[in-house]
């Protein structure tokens, strides 16, 4: 470290990202609670395990290759080769990917991205509950968490990514790069997987499958809101000098920036996070006629819709954009369910996928002509670039890979659990063992009590 100011900046940044990682852990806790609450009692343990094991599997694969993809792929394969130089320090065998006194930031920066990877995989996990094989989901988790989303991040969520440079793509808090892609991926998988038994009546009318535990859902989504604060903070660079950016910004005023190193403030994203949450909740309450779960999910969908431009929007714009997004998402969810007979068990495709796409499209108009980057020669933000970006995120990198892999798994007979097991519940063996153990220990205690009573009587 050259001098005390650099040392302090590095340590502050290191600690800043570390705190965001801890906060973001709550997103995963929230997803787990939401999934378990939405599933029926006979599937609880498997549902929870399915989501929990995303953590280690995505973590190790993100260490092995996910993080390297981010640094090596910004222009690959359409606009250049792999960036071997930037990728080298992020290979799993690089000495910067370990305990290293001369590198204090790589680990926490890696972890901040990794927690996004868990989120992407967890979004998919929710939509497929109660009928997918865990082994199948965990392969999808690795693919969305450590391959597809991080390719999209290299392209559209990197200061040198080709989508930013050529399309003027702007997605500050990941409407597209996390939510649209994960929603699109989930749609591809559930299209092949099929609905849960009983979801549709014989005439095709969809049935509501109510949550087993509504309170668990409520706490789950509130924890997701909480973790989302950390997510927002993690999308920023907390403090950097114009010299550090080395772009077109003049003067000596240090600033927070978005991921593209373009200026924003923590104040702005605090305003906009809360106003878009509010707009989403209010619109969802009205459109769903006060349905509790749609209202809560609407808060999340509202934030996701506004996220692409929440580094720049006015708070009232964030609120209105969130509200518009939620109305579209709600209508689209039920239309798709009726038209295509798809069972999105937790509304993940809608809340994440459709909201992300709508958010990107709206931001293209509202931020039309605004610079996408502090560097010279980049396209400015524009509707065509944002719409193209939405298609790349939702369809090309999300839907298609999810659908193709699910098709292969279905063809091999390893995608879905057998019908008999779905009906009796994935936890049947565990419940059976629990009840047997309970009966045995109660019987043993009764015998002990009887033996003592007999001894006392003598």
């Amino acid at each position, binding site marked *: 470290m050259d001098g005390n100011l650099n040392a302090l900046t590095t340590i502050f940044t290191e600690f800043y990202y570390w705190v965001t990682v801890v906060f973001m852990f709550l997103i995963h806790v929230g997803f787990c609670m939401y999934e378990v609450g939405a599933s029926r009692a006979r599937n609880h343990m498997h549902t929870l395990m399915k989501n929990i094991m995303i953590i280690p599997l995505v973590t190790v694969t993100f260490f092995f290759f996910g993080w390297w993809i981010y640094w090596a792929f910004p222009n690959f394969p359409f606009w250049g080769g792999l960036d071997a130089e930037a990728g080298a320090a992020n290979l799993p065998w690089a000495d910067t990917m370990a305990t290293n006194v001369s590198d204090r930031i790589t680990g926490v920066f890696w972890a901040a991205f990794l927690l996004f990877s868990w989120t992407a995989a967890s979004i998919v996990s929710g939509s497929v509950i109660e009928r997918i*094989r865990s082994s199948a989901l965990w392969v999808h988790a690795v693919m969305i968490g450590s391959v597809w989303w991080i390719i999209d991040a290299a392209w559209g969520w990197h200061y040198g990514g080709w989508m930013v440079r050529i399309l003027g793509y702007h997605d500050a808090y990941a409407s597209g790069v996390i939510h649209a892609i994960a929603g699109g991926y989930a749609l591809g998988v559930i299209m092949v997987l099929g609905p849960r038994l009983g979801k549709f009546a014989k005439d095709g009318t969809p049935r509501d499958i109510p949550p087993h535990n509504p309170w668990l859902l409520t706490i789950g989504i509130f924890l997701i809101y909480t973790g989302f604060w950390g997510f927002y903070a993690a999308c920023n660079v907390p403090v950097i000098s114009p010299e550090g950016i080395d772009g077109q910004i003049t003067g000596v005023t240090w600033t927070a920036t978005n991921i593209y190193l373009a200026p924003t403030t923590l104040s702005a994203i605090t305003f906009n996070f809360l106003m878009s949450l509010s707009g989403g909740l209010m619109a969802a309450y009205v459109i769903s006629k006060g349905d509790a779960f749609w209202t809560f999910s609407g808060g999340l969908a509202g934030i996701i819709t506004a996220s692409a431009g929440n580094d720049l929007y006015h708070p009232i714009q964030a609120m209105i954009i969130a509200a518009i997004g939620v109305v579209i998402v709600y209508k689209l969810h039920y239309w798709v369910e009726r038209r295509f007979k798809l069972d999105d068990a937790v509304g993940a495709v809608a809340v994440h996928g459709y909201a992300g796409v709508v958010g990107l499209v709206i931001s293209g108009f509202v931020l039309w002509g605004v610079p996408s980057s502090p560097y010279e020669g980049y396209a400015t933000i524009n509707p065509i670039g944002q719409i193209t970006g939405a298609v790349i995120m939702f369809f090309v990198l999300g839907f298609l890979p999810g659908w193709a892999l699910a098709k292969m798994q279905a063809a091999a007979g390893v995608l879905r659990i057998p019908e008999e097991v779905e009906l009796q519940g994935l936890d049947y063996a565990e419940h059976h063992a629990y009840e047997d153990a309970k009966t045995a220990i109660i019987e043993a205690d009764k015998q002990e009590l009887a033996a003592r009573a007999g001894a006392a009587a003598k």
Partner: protein
Amino acid sequence: MSTNGYTSWAVDLAEVGPIYPFQGYEVLMVIIGVVFWIGWHRIQFVREGEHLEKARHTGDEEKVKAQLERY
């Protein structure tokens, strides 16, 4: 002798880089890690397949009905 190359912290930290043990064996460690990861998938995949096949034939109708009622 030291596994990380340092036997004392009487050093200028500006000249210190990696301090983990067995430096130089990073590629080997990655190979071991990848084998561990792929091996885990293999073991889990086989076990789940066997479990689901067995589970298809173990459901007691009365107990399943009770589970359905429990919601």
